Structures are given as C-alpha cells and as structure tokens.
C-alpha cells in the first residue's frame, strides 16, 4: 500500500510542532520565578512598561509567561475570568492555582494537538501559601504538560544556562533583596551588564499583605531594593501600582533575537 502524497506521520507532526514552539519560546528573554522568605518573586527583563509578562490572577495567584504576547495575553485574560467567576460563585478561598493550572494544561494540550500552529508560550502559575511550605509553583509548557516546581523556575530564552546560574545562588528563605539579586545575577550572562531598572518588570506575591497578595515593584522602591537596602522596609513602602499605565509606547515586549543572556 502506498502512502498518499504529502503524508506526515503523527510522530513527525508532533516533533515538528514541538520544535517550532521551542524555537519561538527560546527567542525571547528569560523569566525567573523564585520563592523568598515572604512569598514568591517574579522577575522579567521587559523593555515595555505597558505590555506585561507578569500579572495578577487572583488574591494569592500570580502569572508569568514567555513567548508570543497575543497568545499568553489571551491565556492571562481567560485565567482572570476563570478565577473571578469561581471566586464569585463559591468563595475567594476556593480559587486555587491547581485548578487554573489544570485548565491551562487542557487548553494548551488541545491547541497543541488540534491546531496547525501550537502556542509558542510557556507559563508559570504560582500561588502563595500561609507558609513557604504552602507555596505552589506550576510550570506549563506549550504542549500542555504541567510540572510542580519547588524553589525556582526559569523559562524562555536560554533557560538552561540561566537556571544553572540561579541554582548556585538559590537557597530557601532568601530575603527579598537577596532573591532579587540572585535572579538578576542569573539573568545576566557572566561579565555582562545587569538590565537597568527601567527595563525590568518585577512583582511579588507577598504573603504578609492583606486582601490581594500581588504587588508590582517599580520605580524608587525597586531601585532601593536593587541598591541593597535592608529588606525590612519592604513591607512599609508605598504601593506602586498607580505608576502603571504611564508606560512607554505599545510595542512588542522585546526584539526577536535574544541578546541579553547568550551564555
């Protein structure tokens, strides 16, 4: 029996799709998510202040993504809807990162198998607990697989090299200043220059906050933290969310070729 012209075996098709998605994801800059003593820290080199790679989903849940902006933005918006409607239907405490990760996994998996083009994205869904043991970090890849991570996650760009550098610096119970320093050191290739404050998107899920735990760190506060100020003033510093929206032009979050961390 002869194969029809243009036949592609399922194995080959999956491999091609996976290669395609991996290439797309590796083009951007890396995003780092790591635990620190008071919660979970998100760090992303991001030249745009308007197009976020890091976002709040719900009271205790944060989101970080790399890859194609329009694709992960759609996932982010869907996630917010999922969280808000579940919290409204039941109770705010009934919205969990696990449920959201499952939903993302299903959606990503379906797109991967059924669409001609898979999503070129990788996501982290993180939930801060009452103690460090209660923290949950889920990493989702373009094909819908989920991994439950502890400590830290690096995705996008040259993730392996960044992860190797972060592994040397990471330990449990880092202060916010130390964790930020470790993340930036990992994101900078050896001998390279650290990205300036204006090119950084940083946020925390801080378990000591009331109501919503997610907070963006921007402007003077971020500069203080990067300058090595004692972490003690972190809890009292002013909220900085009103500074959002004053961002730069609505362009793509970055160029298409990674230049910052080619180790």
């Amino acid at each position, binding site marked *: 029996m002869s194969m029809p012209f243009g036949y592609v075996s399922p194995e080959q098709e999956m491999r091609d799709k996976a290669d395609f998605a991996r290439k797309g994801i590796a083009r951007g800059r890396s995003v780092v998510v790591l635990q620190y003593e008071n919660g979970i820290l998100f760090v992303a080199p991001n030249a745009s202040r308007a197009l976020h790679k890091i*976002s*709040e989903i719900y009271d205790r849940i944060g989101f970080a993504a790399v890859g194609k902006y329009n694709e992960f933005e*759609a996932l982010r*918006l*869907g996630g917010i809807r999922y969280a808000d409607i579940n*919290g*409204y239907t039941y109770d705010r405490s009934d919205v969990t990162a696990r449920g959201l990760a499952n*939903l993302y996994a299903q959606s990503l998996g379906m797109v991967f198998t059924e669409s001609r083009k898979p999503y070129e994205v990788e996501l982290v869904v993180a939930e801060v607990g009452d103690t460090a043991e209660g923290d949950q970090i889920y990493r989702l890849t373009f094909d819908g697989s989920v991994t439950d991570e502890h400590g830290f996650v690096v995705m996008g760009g040259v993730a392996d090299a960044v992860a190797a550098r972060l592994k040397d610096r990471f330990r449990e119970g880092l202060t916010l200043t130390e964790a930020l320093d470790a993340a930036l050191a990992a994101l900078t290739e050896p001998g390279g220059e650290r990205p300036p404050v204006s090119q950084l998107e940083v946020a925390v899920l801080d378990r000591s906050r009331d109501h919503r735990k997610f907070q963006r760190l921007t402007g003077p506060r971020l500069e203080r933290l990067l300058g090595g100020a004692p972490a003690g003033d972190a809890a009292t510093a002013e*909220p900085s969310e*009103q500074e959002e929206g004053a961002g730069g032009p609505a362009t793509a979050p970055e160029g298409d070729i990674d230049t910052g961390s080619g180790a």
Partner: protein
Amino acid sequence: MAAQPGWMSNLFLDTGSTSFTEFVGSYAPGLLPGRLEMTAGGGGGGGVADRIPHATTIVAATFAGGVVMAGDRRATAGNYISQKDMEKVFRTDEYSCMGIAGTASTGIELARLYCVELEHYEKRESRTLSVEGKANRLATMIRGNLPMAMQGMVVVPLFAAYDEDRDSGRIFSYDVGGGPYEQQRYASIGSGSLFARGALKKLYRDGATSDETILACVHALYDAADDDSATGGPDVTRKIWPLVAVIDADGFRRLPDEEVEGFVRQVLDVRMADPDGPTAPLR
C-alpha cells in the same frame, strides 16, 4: 473536555469585554443578583418584600483629603429585627467603598458583584477605573435591578471614593433607576436617612479632621436610631458598634471595634448630659 461547563469552552477565544458582570451575564446569568423572575408580592410594595430583611441607615461625609462612611448594624423584616450585627458597608477596592440600604440579600450580592467588577477591570487593564467610571458602573448595575425594585426588592447604594487626582473624598448616591448623583460634603441613605441628614447638616464642618467627621457621622447615626425604629443604636451591652470606614490617600481602612467604641463613648457621654446631642449656634 466534554465535562466542562459551557462558559469555559470559549474562555480563551472570546476575551472581549472588561466587564465581569457582562461576562457572567453571558455565561452564567443565574449567578447575577435579581435575575429571577420571582413573585415578590406583585405590583406594589407589600408581599414578600416586607418579610425579607432590610438594611437601614448609611451616612457618608467628606473631610479634607478623604471620606468617612458609617452604617448602623440593624436589619429588619417588618417589625422584626432580623440581625443585630449586620455589616452593610463594603470595601469595593483600595480607594472606594459602598453602603447599602434596602433588601439586604440583593444588596450584599450586588456589593460582592461590584467588588469583582472593579477588580476584574483593574487586573485586565492594569489600571483602576476613574472615580466617575466606578460610580457610573454602579449606576448600570442598580438599573439592572429595576424590575426587582418594581416588585418591592429595592436596593439603593451609597458610594464613596477617594479621588487621587483631586486628593479629596467624593460621595455618590443613587435611586432605584440608577444615577449617579454626586453629593457635596455629606449624604445619607436608608430609612433613617432623613434624621441622619438633619443631624449632619448641623454637625458637618468644612475643614474638619477625619476624627471630627467620624464623630459627626456617629452622632448622625445616633439621631437616626433615636427617631427611626429600623435603625439600630449602639448596643452597649453586646458591644455592637456602628461600622465606620475611612478612605484617604492611604486607602480604605475599616476602624477596629475598639476605635469605634471610643467615638461611641464620646457620643454617649454627650447624650447623657443632653439626650438631643450637640446644638448648633443660632447665629
């Protein structure tokens, strides 16, 4: 995948509106307050509506750089006091709050929905709505409840917010058809609102501090409870005090019970000597 409810299937494809209420309305309309075509007595004010708990008096007053909102704690169903420690002032986001008067259940649901509505917008757009935007949004939601209101399930909110652009507090009131009506200096809603407004008219001072404004609000609630059977006064034996919230540049703060007790004790001391409270100078 087949087991997923309908609203989930288009979750990532149809991300159109920033309104949570619209989203709920299209995917799960049963969750919205007041959408049941129920038999609330039909036609007039009587029927079921009288037997459903009602929330009563809320007052709000601005001071330099912020706004105070206070509410009594009583809910009534007809002549019966259905709850002594009800909470009817709700934090809606970091810089705003609302109080409700009217049908308690619908009001609570409305407050909960409105809270998610503001947060939903904020998370999607990475910015908070303007104060006018928030006030208008609430008006639309009240208007949505109009059919229920016509059947007796009336709910009317009072909305207060700190306006960062003006560095001042602002107050908006509504009627059953919506609104908003921006109120200058002070406002009140609920069954005891006439008495409370009368009191605030005499006690409100321009340029007062937040503490003085809180004291004026507690006095106003006391006067409302004095003359309106549906408004609860301070319950000294059970230590149930009015609910007082302050919003200023630092955000929303609900005063802890001990702090409110301090203000209530001051009011009670004054009233011990003069049951009608402080008097305004004639000229």
